């Protein structure tokens, strides 16, 4: 388990194929299209992230809570549940499991605040969250230990001799990946490799400013910069994926001469890496749009939740 991802419940029960995931969402798709569903997922991931920030919990706890939320919705449709309650409960359970328990009242108070900021009311009290926790545990099949890419990132970065700022950047990308379905589709070390790859590929097309990119990924409220990210990342990813990009970051990664060889030796499917990279790029595009269109998400949620 803890020492071996592949024998863990995460590795054996909770990696889905794209087809299986699509099947899980059939009911929701009757009411909203795929793009809208992606926006809904971004929306709730943001709610959980904001809740975690208010509670001042660590990033790993936020990641665990979002993973619980996504796992829950592989077994249920949004329509038949109350996603805000599920979100708060996921955070409550994640804090316990990650050994930083929060009082149930603190969760509820902070959830009320962040929902008010969105013009909504969170009307649930203790016993509702406690009741929901029971249901959540059942839906998770009591599989509560979740693996995240952060640890793999540190290992990979160390092996590669990556600069701190690049590691930081990849860390932000991993945070952002929880707004996508990556945590349901790929093992965490593959997501970590993809985050690092995205950075390195971007550096290959060095004309795009790195630091603005960092702030973009963490706040994502400047659409124009996000646009640059998207194009830059696409170009870089495409170049690296076609294996033409021989001059990648040689001076940035002193421990490794040939970056392509290094990735090849990772024993990670490069197609998966480019898949994740594409997914993250389209996330940034959608995310930017969604942020300005609060009305739009409200309309989607109304349709989805009836």
């Amino acid at each position, binding site marked *: 388990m803890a020492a071996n991802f592949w024998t863990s419940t995460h590795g054996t029960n909770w990696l889905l194929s794209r087809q299986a995931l699509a099947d899980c969402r059939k009911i929701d798709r009757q009411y909203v299209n795929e793009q809208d569903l992606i926006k809904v997922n971004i929306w709730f991931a943001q709610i959980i992230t904001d809740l975690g920030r208010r509670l001042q919990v660590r990033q790993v706890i936020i990641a665990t809570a979002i993973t619980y939320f996504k796992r829950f919705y592989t077994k249920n449709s949004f329509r038949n549940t109350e996603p805000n309650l599920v979100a708060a409960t996921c955070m409550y359970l994640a804090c316990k499991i990650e050994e930083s328990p929060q009082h149930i009242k603190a969760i509820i108070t902070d959830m009320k605040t962040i929902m008010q900021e969105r013009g909504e009311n969170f009307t649930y009290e*203790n016993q509702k969250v406690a009741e929901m926790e029971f249901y959540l545990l059942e839906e998770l099949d009591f599989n*509560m230990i979740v693996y995240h890419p952060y640890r793999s990132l540190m290992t990979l970065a160390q092996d590669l001799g990556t600069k701190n700022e690049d590691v930081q950047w990849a860390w932000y990308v991993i945070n952002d990946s929880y707004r996508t379905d990556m945590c349901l589709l790929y093992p965490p070390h593959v997501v970590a490799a993809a985050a690092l790859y995205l950075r390195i590929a971007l550096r290959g097309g060095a004309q795009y400013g790195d630091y603005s990119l960092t702030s973009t990924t963490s706040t994502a409220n400047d659409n124009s910069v996000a646009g640059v990210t998207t194009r830059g990342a696409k170009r870089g990813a495409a170049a690296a994926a076609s294996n033409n990009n021989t001059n990648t970051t040689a001076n940035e990664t002193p421990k490794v001469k040939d970056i392509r060889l290094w990735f090849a030796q990772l024993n990670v499917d490069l197609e998966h890496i480019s898949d994740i990279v594409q997914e993250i790029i389209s996330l940034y595009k959608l995310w930017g749009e969604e942020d300005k269109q609060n009305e739009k998400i409200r309309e989607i949620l109304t349709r989805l939740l009836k």
Partner: protein
Amino acid sequence: MLAEFRTKRETERVRVEDKYQVIGFISSGTYGRVYKAKAKKTVKSADGEEKELVYAIKKFKPDKEGDTHTYTGISQSACREISLCRELQHQNIISLQEVLLEDNSIHMVFEYAEHDFLQIIHHHSQQERKPIPEFTIKSFLWQLLNGVAYLHANWVLHRDLKPANILVTADGVVKIGDLGLARIYERPLQPLFNGDKVVVTIWYRAPELLLGSRHYTKAIDIWAVGCIFAELLTLRPIFKGEEAKMDNKKNVPFQKNQLNKIFDVLGKPTKEQWATIEQQPEYPNLASFRSSPNRLREFYNNSCSSNSDAGFALLSAMLEYDPVKRITAEDALLHPYFSEEPKPSMDSFEGQHYQYPLRAVKSEDNDMKVPPTANSAVQGQGGTTHGGTRGKHGHSGKDEGRPSKRGRV
């Protein structure tokens, strides 16, 4: 819209009584109660015989029973135990069959183990008045270390190893139980100390913990295994100290009495033995102790049922003061003691004639919804308990006066 979901969940939910028939009550503690039960469905074994599957069901009581207003969900201890048991799979770790939720209570369904170390130690000291055969002790110890090595390889600390928590099946297979205090320490979000101020039952608590160390390691489990080894050899706890109670402000007191018991046998530790001893928070308190010699050899020769030098060497290696120098579970498994005759086996009872008593089960208390009758509840263990009985599905209630440790969460 939640109503719809709730209905769906409730109809899908498997009821405990649909699958299991409760045979009787085993034990209880602050966590809840443990029952013996059999599966209603029998299975056919290889030779075509109908076989009954027996389980121990641990029913947690909600944190505040009956009080729905203050009910705050499942306890962190239950959370830990379930999450870890869900991941762990090893022949020397008690296996969790399934978890069922009913009446706001968690029911953990474990494989059943007929015996435990404590019960067997008692049987030899009270009934037989003869030591446990060396073959059985060695098999017990090897299997215990085998399970601990697996936990440690997976970055799990047990943190409450003691005879009552080490179960043994009727076939002589050791099963480490009660992971309610266990933790993954691979990626501590919080220093281990912050979560639980006190871990490990006092008699089995490692010296670094007694000296206030906040960054303890898997070596604390090995110390406990060493104490258990000694207890198997002598049929009584090696360091039977008295726990100093926490004061009202929840300050952790200095455990002078327990340290004295350890120093009586192992001598007062020196800087040469334990390089970082002066950095232990409680080190200044050691000034009042007189220095004393190590008498472990004497203890081994006079009180222990084995005369193997390798056995002594292994015991010393597990009771090493310096946690850095203490033997690891993995190295202990390779110790020469285990290649000496009698060699350990996965059936600790192989060729042995002892008939250990079956686990006491109160068959009149076979309704999990009703608290057991007063005289059958194994409660109120005296002595130094300040957290209530531990969550073993273990012993039969013969350890009056034994301390226990509930994790402070």
